[in-house]
């Protein structure tokens, strides 16, 4: 069973519909026990890091997430789900996060007034290392991004893909063990996004 973690951080309709399109059964759940029992876990998220961490703590979800990642269960972070997997975020005057990945999450500070924040739209992902998540996806393909903050991993070996925006080349795909995480929204990234989700469902780390 694939568990999609519902922690009241935004709308899960697109994630649910993407799995439906692929014909893959996935259960949306806010119960830590269901997450612990899952064969794979999807950790989406839209919104602010502070509110997301508060919601995860309220649901007592953080230990369940640490547990599944510790047991090498395939785990996919998306957008804010990816961000709160780091140690801390600059958002909301600084938020302590889960710390599955070494590093922090930083705000875009563009010097060009036409580089808007949030970054909103389709941007290319340069694949830094081969990874099963990229199977059948050409290098530099575009995915759909909506975010004001970006991951800054402390360990370069975690960086699977990079994207350029507002004067930084940031880690847009991060991987470590059974965890893989994207800053973009594969569930809203057309056929290539579906391919990435399908790759995740077939991946045996």
């Amino acid at each position, binding site marked *: 069973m694939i568990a999609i973690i519902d922690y009241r951080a935004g709308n899960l309709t697109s994630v649910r519909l993407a799995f*439906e*399109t692929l014909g893959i059964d996935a259960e949306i759940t806010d119960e830590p026990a269901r997450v612990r029992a899952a064969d794979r876990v999807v950790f989406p998220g839209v919104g602010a890091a502070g509110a997301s961490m508060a919601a995860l703590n309220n649901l007592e979800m953080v230990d369940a997430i640490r547990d599944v990642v510790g047991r090498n269960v395939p785990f996919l972070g998306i957008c804010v789900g990816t961000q709160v997997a780091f140690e801390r975020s600059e958002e909301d005057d600084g938020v302590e996060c889960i710390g599955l990945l070494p590093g922090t999450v930083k705000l875009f500070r563009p010097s060009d007034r036409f580089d808007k924040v949030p970054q909103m739209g389709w941007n290319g992902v340069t694949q830094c290392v081969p990874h099963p998540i990229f199977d059948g996806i050409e290098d530099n393909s575009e995915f759909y991004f*909506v975010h004001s903050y970006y991951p800054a991993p402390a360990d370069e070996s975690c960086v699977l893909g990079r994207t350029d*925006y507002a004067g930084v080349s940031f880690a847009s795909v991060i991987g470590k063990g059974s965890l893989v995480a994207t800053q973009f929204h594969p569930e809203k990234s057309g*056929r*290539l996004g579906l391919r990435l989700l399908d790759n995740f469902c077939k991946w045996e780390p």
Partner: protein
Amino acid sequence: MLTKRIIPCLDIHDRKVTKGVKFQNNIVLGDPVELASRYYEEGCDELVFYDITASAHDRPTDIEMVRDVARAVRIPFAVGGGIASLDDMSRILLAGAEKVSVNSLAVRNPAIIAEGAKALGSQCIVLGMDPVAVNKPECPSGYEITVRGFREHTGLDALEWAKKAVDLGAGEIVVNSVDADGTRQGFEIDLTRMIAENVPVPVVASGGGGCAQHLVDVFEQAHADAAIIAGMIHTGEFTIPDIKRELAEAGVPIRQKW
């Protein structure tokens, strides 16, 4: 590099896609889900639906249609028209839309922008505006906001309104030029650039797109982040792949693989 977005606009009248000039003389073009699926397959970057019946007759937005579109396409889409409350916004997003677009409602009740942004996130609150060129002391930018299908002037200055909406929490602004709408003679460059230069959020140009060169112009000269097109593709005169090819040849960053 972030690519420029091409956004087909589908005006919905009684669950059919229609096209008119300046909200008049609407002709039926087809089924919204079929057209949305076709543009998705052809590589559009996003879609926008305006429920013009709902907007004109104070009816709620057609939620069933939003659900059907959400099942059919795997790219973001926005929905506008007939939104009267935070509840309405929430229903549209839960049905699968990525964004809601408010226009007349925000003019009547600007606080709805802040309420929507707080409850649902700025990134899904789009301010749609319909500015018209005027020469009035209360509109120093030279453009006044109209509402209700351009029928009512509001006395609001377009630039001041755009800045206020962003301060309240709007995550994107669609600038739909009343003067250019439906003319297919090109986007209104000065107006779009003025807004794009003065707000920190993405700006979408709308109204007047008639050929690929018009899109090149609005991206390069007005720094629009995205452009809405309608008539030029609805008639079959241009296709999205053709437009994208021309844009890429002109050096505009554009998504070409999908």
